[in-house]
């Protein structure tokens, strides 16, 4: 198999692919994707308290195909449920970068939108989509489970219509997001995930992937080493 390599698909620029079934298949994939979502809820603030009723028997999110998942590596949606302090934001970004594409971020509560009632605090990050690409915001302080489910349905609709592309934006404009992260965390900020490498892998690198901030990252970047295992008795 390895001798064959990739089969080139010849398609003229600006024209649809010649295979008439390709679009059908995409739609099927999008439909399936939107009906099977695993959600990682990063419970940072008060909004988390609305999720147990939304997930369990009363409002029953599972009928929409949304289930909670315990690890970022097997989740599709990252729910950020409330204010994000600068310290927490680091962890949210690490969590987000570990998720597999396609991945979606939902910001719940007013705090993720614009600081909310903590707008005056020195410790909280205000606008979440400066640091992560957010698909849907659910405003409210706190939003009721109905609103949470409505937001989920909006996301499902976006995915079904092929509009849920915010995760691509993170690769395409990585320099912008990295710049905002460096503004808060300092120039030596580095995550264990190679975003530029991933952008290359997905074929999503653009001119805006690189910039002054990625150059700063390259200067400060330290090679990653595996943790040493030590067993203590």
């Amino acid at each position: 198999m390895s001798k064959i390599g990739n089969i080139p698909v010849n398609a003229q620029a600006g024209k649809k692919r010649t295979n008439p079934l390709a679009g059908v298949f995409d739609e099927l994939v999008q439909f399936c994707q939107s009906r099977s979502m695993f959600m990682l809820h990063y419970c940072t603030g008060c909004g988390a308290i609305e999720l147990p009723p939304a997930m369990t028997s009363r409002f029953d999110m599972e009928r929409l195909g949304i289930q909670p998942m315990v690890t970022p590596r097997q989740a599709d949606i990252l729910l950020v449920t409330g204010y994000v302090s600068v310290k927490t934001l680091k962890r949210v970004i690490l969590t987000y970068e570990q998720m597999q594409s396609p991945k979606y971020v939902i910001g719940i509560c007013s705090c993720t939108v614009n600081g909310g009632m903590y707008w005056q605090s020195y410790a909280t990050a205000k606008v979440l989509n400066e640091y992560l690409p957010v698909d849907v915001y659910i405003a409210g302080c706190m939003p009721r489970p109905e609103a949470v489910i409505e937001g989920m349905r909006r996301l499902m609709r976006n995915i079904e219509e092929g509009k849920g592309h915010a995760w691509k934006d993170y690769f395409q404009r990585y320099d912008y997001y990295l710049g905002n992260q460096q503004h808060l965390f300092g120039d030596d900020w580095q995550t264990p995930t190679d975003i530029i490498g991933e952008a290359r892998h997905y074929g999503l690198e653009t001119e805006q992937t690189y910039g002054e901030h990625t150059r700063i990252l390259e200067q400060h970047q330290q090679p990653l080493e595996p943790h040493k295992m030590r067993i203590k008795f």
Partner: protein
Amino acid sequence: MNCEEINLWLDTLLAEIEEIEVTRKSERRVRVDVPASSLPALLELLKGKASYVHLSAISCVDWPDDEEFELVYHCWSYEAKSLLSAHTRIPRNSAQEFAHYVSVYDIYKPAAFFERDIYEMYGIYFESSPYMEKFILTEWNGPPPMRKDFDAEQYVNDTFNWADYHPQWLQELEEDGGGIAVRPEDIRL
């Protein structure tokens, strides 16, 4: 010795010490105002002789007009069933980076926790306290944020951006002469 007797004994004892001012707020609360130089001696006495074995908190108040920090040591006694709060005031040292005071870690071990917290939030350096590294605000490089002269609002406006939100329904309201009476950005500035 029952708890009333202990309290009576303590009141008599404290009344004999010079320089300190004792106010019994209620049956189970005593306030002691003590000069900074004799606070450790008072705590030593309270713990060693008067059963106040539990330091439940050290709190700090900033008095920028008086150029002073007020430190309050809350001590519990399980025998006397009462809370003693020892108030002391230390100079604020606005010109220098840190105010200084002495640690009571050698008397009460939990003091290390509270002193590290106060050092981080108010910038009071406690001599001989075991850990003075960053504690909760590990990402913070600015001035101690709980000081009154730290302007959080100014800091936020300098550091963060605000999302612009001007939806269609609000524009329609404004065209009819309505809208938000005081806009959020007007409150901020």
